[in-house]
C-alpha cells in the first residue's frame, strides 16, 4: 500500500430542504490514501471542506448499518467501499434510492422502522419456559436454518436495490420480510400463523417479483430474496389447503 497522497473528485448529491427545491450535485476534491474508505472521504469533506454536508455513520466496520449510500449508483456501505477503486475517475455519492431524502445523504427511515415494528420481530414461544429451566435446546443445524437471516444489520441497502419497493412503498420489502422469516424459521418460535397474516398479503411475500438484486447488494449475505421466495410456496399451499386443514400449512 503506497501512502502517497492523491486527489479524487467526489460529487455529492446535496439536498437542503430549507433552501433547495430539489437535489443538486456538488463536487469536492479530496486528498486520499489507498486505505481510505468512501466514508472517510465524505468525513474529510465535512471536517475540512464543507461542514454542512450531512450523513449518518458510526462503527466504520460494516456492522452498525448507518452509512449506506448510492456510490456510483450502486447501494453500498460507504465504510467498506474504498476510494482507490474509483481512482483516477471521480465518484458520485447519493442518498439511498427508493427512500425519501431528508437531507443530503440522509434518508427517511421511518417507514422501515414502522414496518420492523409491525412484524412481531421477537420470539413468540412455542412452549413457555422459565429461566430456571435453562435455555431452549437448539442444535447447530436448527440454528443454521435462521442464523443467516438474523444477520441483517438494517442498513436498508436492499430497499435501495428493490424496484418493487420503489414503485410501491406499501410493499413490506426485503429486509423486513427476511427478519420475519428469521423468527418464523427459529425452532423456538411458534408465531408463524400470526406473522403470516402479513406475509400472505399483497404487501407481504407477494409484493416481490424475484428481481434478486436485494441479495446481490446485501453486505452481510442475508439473502432476503430467498427468505421471501421460499415462503411463496408455503403461502400457496396454505391458500389451497386452508379449508381442509384448519391452521393451514404453517409448520
Amino acid at each position, binding site marked *: 500500500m503506497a501512502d502517497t497522497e492523491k486527489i479524487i473528485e467526489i460529487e455529492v448529491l446535496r*439536498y437542503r*430542504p*430549507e433552501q433547495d427545491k*430539489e*437535489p443538486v450535485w456538488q463536487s469536492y476534491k479530496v486528498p486520499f490514501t489507498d486505505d481510505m474508505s468512501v466514508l472517510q472521504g465524505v468525513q474529510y469533506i465535512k471536517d475540512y471542506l464543507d461542514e454542512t454536508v450531512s450523513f449518518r455513520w458510526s462503527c466504520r466496520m460494516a456492522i452498525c448499518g448507518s452509512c449506506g449510500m448510492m456510490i456510483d*449508483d*450502486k447501494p453500498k456501505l460507504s465504510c467498506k467501499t474504498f476510494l482507490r477503486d474509483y481512482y483516477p475517475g471521480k465518484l458520485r455519492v447519493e442518498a439511498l*434510492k*427508493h427512500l*425519501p*431524502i*431528508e437531507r443530503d445523504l440522509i434518508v*427517511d427511515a421511518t417507514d422501515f422502522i414502522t414496518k420492523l415494528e409491525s412484524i412481531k420481530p421477537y420470539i413468540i414461544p412455542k412452549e413457555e419456559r422459565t429461566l430456571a429451566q435453562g435455555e431452549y435446546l437448539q442444535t447447530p*443445524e436448527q440454528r*443454521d*436454518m435462521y442464523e*443467516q437471516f438474523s444477520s441483517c444489520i438494517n442498513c436498508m441497502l436492499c430497499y435501495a436495490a428493490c*424496484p418493487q419497493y*420503489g*414503485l410501491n412503498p406499501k410493499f413490506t420489502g426485503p429486509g423486513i420480510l427476511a427478519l420475519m422469516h428469521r423468527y418464523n424459521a427459529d425452532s423456538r418460535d411458534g408465531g408463524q400463523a400470526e406473522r403470516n397474516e402479513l406475509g400472505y398479503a399483497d404487501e407481504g411475500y407477494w409484493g416481490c*417479483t*424475484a*428481481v*434478486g*438484486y436485494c*441479495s*446481490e447488494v446485501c453486505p452481510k449475505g442475508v*439473502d432476503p*430474496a*430467498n427468505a421471501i*421466495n*421460499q415462503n*411463496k*410456496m408455503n403461502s400457496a399451499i396454505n391458500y389451497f389447503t386452508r379449508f381442509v386443514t384448519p391452521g393451514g400449512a404453517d409448520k
Partner: protein
Amino acid sequence: MSNRRPYVRSMDGWWKRDAYFVSYMAREVTSVFVAAYAVVLLFGLVRLGQGEAAFNGWLQYLKTPWMLVFHVIVLAVFCYHTWSWFKIMPKTMPIMFVGGKRVQPGTITGTGLAAAVVACLALLFIVGGVS
C-alpha cells in the same frame, strides 16, 4: 410545524439504471414471446379442429421465412428463459442440507439446467421415435 420536506425521487426509467435491472427486465420480457408462441400453437390446434385443409394451411404458414425468423428468436428466448428460470430457482427453495452440508445455490441451478437438457433430449427422442 415541521421543517422536514422529504424529497421523493422519480422511478421513471428505473430499469435502465443498473445492468442487473436490465437483465431482470429481459427475463420478464421473455413472457411476451412465450405468449406469442402459445398463440401460434393455439392457432394450430383450432385449425386442427377445423379439418385437414385448415390444418395444412397452418403448416404451410409455418414454413414462411417470417415464421422461421420468429421461431429462431423464440428459441433463443426460450433458452434464456430456461437459464434465468433455474438461476433464480435457489432463491425460491428452503435451505437444504445434504450430509450435514448446506446445498449451494450453484448446485441447485446446475441440477435444474441438467434436468432441462435431459427433458429436451427426451422429447426430441420421443418425437423422433414415434414419427
